[in-house]
């Protein structure tokens, strides 16, 4: 995998190889793989032999970049080994250390300690940022994590979320990490909430609502929903703020919750005009305005709205019709979201 990391760096000099190393070990820890597999990954990422030694009972293991276990385990633990709780791991680099060596060794050491049940935090391998954005972490632990990340307790921040293979045009500064979610590993960055902040330009990326550190778990969940609403290149970035409280409700709705309006809306997929028409209706006060926005004749729009009204069972311009349609539309987009499945490199920045 060292060779693949090199290719990624050549294709996209802005790519953070360290985050990929972290994501790789996160998956290994979640998968609860054994020491041999952890050493194999480290050796493969580094392109040199990775070693392991435990004091009691005495056991040593050395694995080469091809994942082959070496027979010779008599080599002494080198002085460069990372040692804790009677466990040592190291990389047998000949010559100067390479830029990724430190992060590979750090993640390997942590993963090995967890596999052996020796990590300080037991099986909770998550780091400060991961603890901070987890609603189930007790509030005092979350605040301790915020402190460790250098956040001010009463200042406002936002979570920015992106897939691992996001294309950053402008990368914001702030604490960042890879956080495991039901949607897979997510790249999360904490940024100060400043009006008109232009330090971020990325595709795709979701920007959460502004909160104080103790509520950043909420910002994280809204950022995830915002991310899933992205549809690059048409919609590269989504701000949770655009949707106010609605996005919070969506963030907290169980994945399998019944959404009959959205179910019915799915039937509009058969019509080529479905999404564009709904967008126009949501942003309009009248049929005439919707027709103008969608660039169709008034009577055409009226026919489409009649179709929508018949299908959904309510008139989108009447009473709660608009918020109902808006909510159903967002749920429908989330269900169809491919943004986390399609981490495709963009043509303009990478070819």
């Amino acid at each position, binding site marked *: *995998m060292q*060779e*693949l*990391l*090199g*290719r*990624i760096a050549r*294709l*996209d000099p802005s*790519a953070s190889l360290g985050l*990929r190393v972290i*994501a*790789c*070990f*996160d*998956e*290994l820890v*979640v*998968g*609860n*793989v054994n020491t*041999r*597999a952890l050493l*194999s*990954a480290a*050796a*493969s*990422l580094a392109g040199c032999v990775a070693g392991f030694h435990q004091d009691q009972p005495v056991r040593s293991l050395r*694995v080469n*970049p*091809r*994942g*082959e276990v070496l027979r010779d385990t008599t080599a002494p633990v080198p002085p460069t080994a990372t040692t804790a709780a009677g466990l040592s791991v190291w990389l047998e680099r000949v010559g100067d250390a390479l830029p990724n060596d430190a992060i590979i060794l750090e993640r390997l050491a942590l993963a090995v300690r967890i596999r052996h049940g020796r990590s300080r935090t037991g099986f909770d391998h998550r780091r400060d940022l991961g603890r901070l954005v987890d609603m189930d972490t007790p509030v005092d632990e979350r605040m301790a994590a915020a402190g460790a990340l250098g956040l001010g307790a009463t200042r406002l921040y936002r979570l920015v979320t992106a897939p*691992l*293979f996001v294309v950053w045009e402008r990368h914001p500064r702030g604490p960042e990490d890879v956080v495991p979610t039901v949607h897979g*590993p997510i790249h999360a960055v904490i940024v100060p909430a400043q009006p008109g902040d232009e330090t971020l330009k990325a595709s795709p990326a979701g920007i959460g609502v502004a909160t104080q550190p103790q509520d950043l778990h909420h910002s994280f969940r809204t950022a995830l929903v915002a991310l899933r609403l992205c549809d690059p290149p048409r919609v590269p970035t989504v701000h949770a703020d655009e949707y106010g409280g609605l996005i919070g409700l969506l963030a907290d709705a169980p994945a399998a919750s019944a959404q009959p309006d959205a*179910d*019915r809306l*799915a*039937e509009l997929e058969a019509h080529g005009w479905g999404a564009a028409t709904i967008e126009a209706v949501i942003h309009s006060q009248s049929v005439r305005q919707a027709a103008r926005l969608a660039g169709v004749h008034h009577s055409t729009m009226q026919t489409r709205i009649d179709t929508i009204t018949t299908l959904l069972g309510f008139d989108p311009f009447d009473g709660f019709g608009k918020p109902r349609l808006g909510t159903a539309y967002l749920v429908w987009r989330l*269900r169809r979201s*491919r943004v986390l*499945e*399609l*981490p*495709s*490199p963009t*043509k303009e920045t*990478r*070819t």
Partner: protein
Amino acid sequence: MTVAPVLRPEFDAELRAGLAVVGGMFPPTITDDLIDFMRVSYASPPMDDVLRDRGIAREEHVAPGHLGDPIEVSVLRPPGQNGPRPAVVYAHSGGLMFGDRFSGIDLVLDWVDRMGAILVTVEYRLAPEFPDPYPREDMYAALEWTAAHADALDIRTDRLVVAGASAGGGLAAGMALAARDRGGPPLVGQVLDYPMLDDRGITTSMHQFDGVGVWDRVSNQTGWRALLGDACGSESVSPYAAPSRAENLHGLPPAFIDVGAAEVFRDEAIAYADALWKAGGDAELHVWSGAFHACDIFAPHTAVGQSMIKTRNTWLETILAD
């Protein structure tokens, strides 16, 4: 009308970790506009150091391809070769649209330095610039060239094997069919690694992995459409291009077929092995649990990757080694 979740086997944990890296250079879904990107990202790295470290000698030849056009062929020889050796004619991976004759070659080099075989790896021309029949007929021409120049190349014609991975696996199966039908060089084996066999995309597995892993349904469609254009999926597609379409699989050399349980080609690979058996043929089929497409190329350090490589090499060793 609720959206039913797609049921699919999970990726192995070590391989899932590998995808965190692989996804950066090989996105799961490849569309037409990504072909140029893939030609850069999947290009093989310089091979000279690797070959020198393993003591493998490299010769460059120009052979006549389809319609006699010149194509490049590399002949890789085992260390200290003296006298004629068995040979493998190899078709590389890359979805018929990208890659080169050294793509994914690391695994195959074991056959050269550990088994003493000669590897003939072919720069067949790529779609969409060179649609069907260019890729398959370039490969077949290279097979004919190899057999015709066996003396000069110091190759044993009684131990000639065709092999390929992914798109190359489909091309290797096509070579075996064509060699049988055209009275071509006798073959003692065909190695079909997770082969791309069927342009119709009709199996269950083809629809289970949209947007995940390596090479999904859309990527596969992109590859076949690049090769076949509007003929894709029609009755006019040649079995030499899409071997799943062959109606007669009798009289083919022994086949080794491996494929991941968690990849789009699972079902067509199983079906091809089954069809070979039904035709009285010899096929060894391995379906690797938790494996994504070509995981042995991208993550050879994993337990699954190593099992795949070892199992394949064991099979080939029984056929090729002295």
